[in-house]
């Protein structure tokens, strides 16, 4: 492969959000968001609660249906609207390219840790049983929980549960990982272990990531780009040094002053 081709692949866009609007009844939560995430890029989304940042993330894999605008992931472009059988299938195929980590972990309590990690891959026929089990074990090893594979999630701490949730999403070999406030439900002393796993995803796997978080220190360290959400729009978008160092909007400055 020529250098240009490699460059091209590295620059290609994994997620393209185009004119996204989302309303819940009368309430318009997202009012026109455009965002592109390139392969290997880490984009941190931050802002006040209610600014629409989580909603945008949930629209990317159609946990919420966009009211207006479109989402493109790994070349699959979809808009909101009524879910016909065909649309449902397209959404499912799009989701196979997207991994998601939730604030509340949402591990399946009826399965062991290893089953949690591997069940979706099995459902989607991603290789033989042995291959999938091996991949699950490798991933648990990567998040430092290899010895917990036969435990049930309820016996793990919050930080451990969230690391399992990350392994579970990775097992589908997604093109992009979405993190919806992954450390907000954790005790302060447990956030570190989750953040360090996320850090290695970026440095070792060059995983494309969209992260909604209030951890500004972590954001400054791993983000290639940060987007400040305000009232359903991206008010400001820049590399962290620029955005945290010298924010252009007074709103951004006020928020950063409050959280830093």
């Amino acid at each position, binding site marked *: 492969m020529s250098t240009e081709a490699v460059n091209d692949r590295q620059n290609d866009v994994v997620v393209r959000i185009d004119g996204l609007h989302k309303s819940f009844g009368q309430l318009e939560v997202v009012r026109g968001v455009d965002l592109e995430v390139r392969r290997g890029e880490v984009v941190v989304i931050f802002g006040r609660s209610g600014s629409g940042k989580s909603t945008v993330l949930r629209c990317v894999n159609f946990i919420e249906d966009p009211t207006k605008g479109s989402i493109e992931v790994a070349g699959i472009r979809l808009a909101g609207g009524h879910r016909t059988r065909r649309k449902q299938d397209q959404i*499912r195929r799009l989701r196979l390219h997207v991994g998601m980590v939730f604030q509340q972990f949402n591990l399946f309590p009826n399965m062991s840790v290893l089953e949690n990690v591997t*069940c979706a891959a099995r459902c989607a026929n991603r290789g033989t049983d042995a291959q999938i089990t091996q991949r699950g074990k490798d991933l648990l090893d990567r998040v430092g929980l290899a010895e917990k594979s036969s435990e049930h999630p309820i016996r793990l701490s919050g930080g451990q549960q969230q690391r399992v949730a990350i392994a579970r999403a990775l097992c589908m070999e997604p093109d992009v990982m979405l993190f919806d406030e992954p450390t907000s439900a954790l005790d302060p002393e447990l956030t570190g272990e989750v953040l360090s796993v996320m850090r290695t995803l970026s440095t070792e796997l060059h995983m494309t990531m969209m992260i909604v978080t209030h951890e500004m220190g972590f954001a400054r360290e791993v983000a290639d780009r940060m987007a400040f959400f305000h009232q359903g729009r991206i008010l400001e978008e820049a590399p962290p040094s620029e955005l945290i160092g010298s924010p252009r909007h007074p709103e951004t400055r006020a928020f950063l002053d409050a959280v830093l």
Partner: protein
Amino acid sequence: MSDAWERVQLASANVPFRLKTGVVWVVLFLLLAFVGNAAGFDLPWIRDNFRYILGGLRYTMFIAICGIVLAVVMALLGALARISRNPVAYGVAGFYVSFFRGTPLIVQMFLLYLALPPVGRNLMASYAWLPEGFDEAFVLDAATAGILALGLNYGAYMTEIFRAGIQSVAGGQGEAADALGMTYGQKMRKVVLPQALRVIIPPTGNEFIAMMKDTALVSFLGVTVASAEVFRRSQLVGKADFKNLEAYVAAALVYWGLTVAFTVFQTRLERRIGRGYDRAHVARAMRVQANQASHTVRAEP
């Protein structure tokens, strides 16, 4: 209040509560025995006929088990339809639940047993193109009609139990399954239903206990003597010997014993299902593990 009464109360406070309730039960039984004896209760007759009445248990259980299996299937389908956005499924399920909850079980039994055959006959007479034997499909024997009515009726009630159970599974669970690209069927089978089962099983057990008793209604459809269930048998022998008191007491005891036995079984089952979710149990298991770990550490030189 007199001093003597207070002394009784204080003395009673030291007797365990369970012992006291036990004594109450014994007294009640003795009272019943006394009344029965005074009424000329014919114990030898019961001894002679109890085996025959008890023999009806296998038919009672057969009807109840078939009925509950059908009810569970209907309830699962009904519940999935009630939570779906498909108007046909939702409408059909709504009609089903409304009709079978809105009419008496005994009416439903007679509808299936006596009102269906003329439907078959009349259809056969009106439409010549219907295949041979079409009308016979509408003629059900008493046990089949009874099982169908019980299953459909209880299924309608249990639809709500199943729906509530499925909806009790946290919303995040379904979202997580969706986000992992699972299909609807995979999500339900692997994630939602196993968790809903924990909520569904206890009330389903109650429905089963209620159904075991409602099997007695099948006898009104007129079951042949050879394959009669408990109530029908006691009716037959009681009428023949003019021993109604003894016969129905015997039937009542059989049903009572059955439900008591099943209640004990159900309590055990519930305790087992709760295990994976019970934090106390988990904590206990972790303590055991920690003890083992500390032992191994100490055992090492």
